[in-house]
C-alpha cells in the first residue's frame, strides 16, 4: 500500500472516526453535567437575549482594543484564511462531495439544493499564504510575549503545528514544490489533515465548538442579572 493509498483509505477512515467520536465524547462529557437552576429573581426575564454575546464577543470592546488588537487581527487573518481555503478551494469541494457521496449515498448539491461555490485558485493561494504568515506571527508572539509564554503548554504548540501543517502541505502540493511527485505531496497533505482531525478532540482546537457554548452561557447568566456583557 502506497502512502497515498494509506492516506486516502484507512488513515482517513480512522481519523474521521476518532474526530467524530472524540468530539461527541468531549461535548457530551460536558453537556451531560447537571446545571443548577438559578433561583434568584432575574432582573431581565428574557435571559436568552444574552445569546447576543456570541456575536458581541467576536470583537473586543473599545476599552480593551489597544492591548489586544494584534491578537485579534492575526486571529482573524489565520481563521479566515484557513476556513476559506478549507471550504472554497475547488479540489476540497470535490473531495467533500466524494466523501459525502460515500457516506450518505448522495452528492452535496442534492443534499443542500444548490451547488457549493468555489473561489479562484489565486485567491485561495493568497489567503493560505496570509493564514500561514499570521500563524507564524502568533507563534512568534506566543514565544516572545511573557504572558503567552507563561500560560502556554504542549497543547498550544502542537495545535499550532497541526493547524499550520495542512496549509503548508496544501500549498506545497498545489505548487508541486521541491520537485516531489504530486502524489507524495498530496499524501503528505492528507496525512497532515488526518493528524489535525485526530488531535482536534483532545486539545484546544475544540474551542471551535465550545466557544458558542461558553459565550452563550455567560451571555445568558449576565443578561439575567443585567450585568455588563
Amino acid at each position, binding site marked *: 500500500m502506497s502512502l497515498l493509498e494509506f492516506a486516502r483509505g484507512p488513515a482517513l477512515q480512522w481519523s474521521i472516526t476518532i474526530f467524530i467520536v472524540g468530539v461527541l465524547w468531549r461535548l457530551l462529557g*460536558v453537556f451531560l453535567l447537571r446545571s443548577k437552576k438559578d433561583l*434568584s429573581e432575574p432582573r431581565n426575564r428574557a435571559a436568552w437575549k444574552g445569546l447576543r454575546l456570541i456575536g458581541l464577543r467576536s470583537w473586543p470592546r473599545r476599552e480593551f482594543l489597544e492591548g489586544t488588537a494584534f491578537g485579534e487581527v492575526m486571529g482573524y487573518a489565520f481563521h479566515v484564511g484557513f476556513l476559506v481555503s478549507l471550504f472554497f478551494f475547488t479540489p476540497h469541494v470535490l473531495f467533500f462531495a466524494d466523501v459525502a457521496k460515500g457516506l450518505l449515498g448522495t452528492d452535496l448539491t442534492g443534499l443542500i439544493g444548490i451547488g457549493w461555490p468555489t473561489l479562484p485558485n489565486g485567491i485561495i493561494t493568497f489567503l493560505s499564504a496570509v493564514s500561514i504568515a499570521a500563524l507564524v506571527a502568533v507563534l512568534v508572539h506566543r514565544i516572545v510575549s511573557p504572558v503567552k509564554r507563561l500560560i502556554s503548554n504542549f497543547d498550544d504548540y502542537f495545535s499550532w503545528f497541526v493547524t499550520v501543517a495542512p496549509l503548508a502541505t496544501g500549498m506545497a502540493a498545489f505548487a508541486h514544490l521541491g520537485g516531489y511527485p504530486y502524489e507524495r505531496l498530496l499524501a503528505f497533505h492528507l496525512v497532515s489533515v488526518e493528524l489535525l482531525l485526530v488531535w482536534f478532540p483532545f486539545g484546544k482546537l475544540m474551542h471551535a465548538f465550545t466557544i458558542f457554548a461558553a459565550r452563550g452561557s455567560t451571555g445568558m447568566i449576565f443578561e439575567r442579572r443585567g450585568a455588563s456583557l
Partner: protein
Amino acid sequence: MTTTHTRKPEPLEFDKPRVSIAKPEYRFDMQGEMHDAERVERAMKSFVKDFGRTAAIYMESCIHCGMCAEACHFYETTKDPKYTPIWKLEPFKQAYKREYGPFAVVFRALNLKPRVTVEELQRWQELIYDSCTVCGRCSLMCPMGIDIATLVSQARHGMFAAGLIPHELWAVTERARLEGSPLGATPKVFADRLEWLADDHEVEIPIDKDQADVLCTMSSIEIMKYPDSVVATARIMNHLGVDWTFRLDGYEATNFGLLAGNSAAQKQLTMKLIDAAVACGAKTLILPECGHAYTALRWMGANMYGEPLPFKVMHIAEFLAEQVHDGNLRLKRLGKSVTFHDPCQVIRRGGAIEAPREVLKALGAELREMYPGKGTNWCCGGGGGVVANHRADGLRYKTFKLKMEQIEKTGAEMPVTTCANCRQTFDDGQAHFKWDTKMHSLLELVADNLIEDEA
C-alpha cells in the same frame, strides 16, 4: 507557612483608614492539621463539588490567548505575567483535566497533566487571594466568553477546604463564626451604636420590630467606620415614611464566607438575613453600600435558601433610584461636578448600572464619567477581601494609582461611590499617597440633601 488550630479572635484595628484584623505578628496562611496529600485532595474535591455544566464548558474553552491579562489591574500596573487572570487558575485547570474532564482517564493514564502539589497551591494562594478582587473585568475581555471571576471564586472554595487561605480572611471568618460579625459589629455593639447614633443625631432608629415592610441591613465597615451611613439610612427611611426596621438577628450584610471561599459560613451569614426578613414579614430587604453583600444575597441568596426568596432584595442605590423615579424623593441640588466609581459587584457583575447615576442626576450633579467607565471601570483594588489582607498592601497600592489617574482625568470636584469597601480602599489609598481627594458615599450625599418639607 505555619499551621494553626483554633485561636482566640484576632484583634481588630479601628484607628487606621481601613478596618481589618491588626497586622499579624506571625502569619498563619495555612490552617488546620492535615497531610499535604489530604490538603490537595480536599482542595480539588471542593473545587469540583459544585462543578456544573457551565464551569466545565469554561474549563474546556480556554485557548491561552492571554488577552485577559490586559483587563486585569494587577497585570496592568505591574506587567508581571503571573497576574494573568487565567494563570491564577492553573493548578485547578490542571486538576480538572486530570481528575474530572471528559478525557481525565487519558490524562491520568499517560500522566499528561501532573498531579497538583500542596506547594503549588501554596504558591497560588497569592494569585487567588492577594491579586484577584473577583472584579470580573477579565470576564468581559475573554474572547471565549469565560467568566474567569466565577472560576476564581470556585477555586477559593478549594483553597478554603485545603486550609490554605490568607491569615486575615481566615481570622475575620473565624470572628464571624465566633461573634456573629467579622469586624466586631456584634449584636451588642450594633445595638449600642444605634442607641448612641439615635441620641447623637436625633433620629429615630427602629430596632427589632415584629412586623415591617422593609428590613434594612448594614455592613460591618459602615457600622464600625462609617456610622454616618447608618444615620443616613435611618434619615432617608423616616423621611420617606417607610415602615422599616433594623433587626439584631439579621443586620450584618458583610459576607466574608463568600470572599474566603467558605460556603458553610457564607450560607450561615446569608440565612441570618433571610430568616430576619421572613420573621418580620418584610416585603423588601435593603442591602447597604457594599458590593459583595449584593452578590451574596441578591444573586446567591435564593440558591442558598433553596427556593425563591419571599421578599425583594435591593441595593440601597436601587431603592433610592426607585424612590426618585416614583417622585417620593426630592433632593437639593449639589451644584458640583462628580465622578462615579463603579463598584464591580454592584455595577459590572450586579447589573445596577444606571441606578446610582439616576440618583446623582436627581442631586443635580454634573456627572463626569471616567474612562473606562460603567461596566469596564477599573476596580479600586480592594474588593474580594484584598483590602483586608496586609500582605497584599504593596500590590494594592500599585493598582490604586490607576484609580487616582482615572479620577483626576475627569476633573470632577467630587468622587462618589456606593460601596463602603471601595470607600475604605480609597481612604486607605488616599492616606498612603497623601492624595487630596476624598471618596464620598452616595447614600450619605442623599441623606445630606433631603428636601425635608417635600416628604
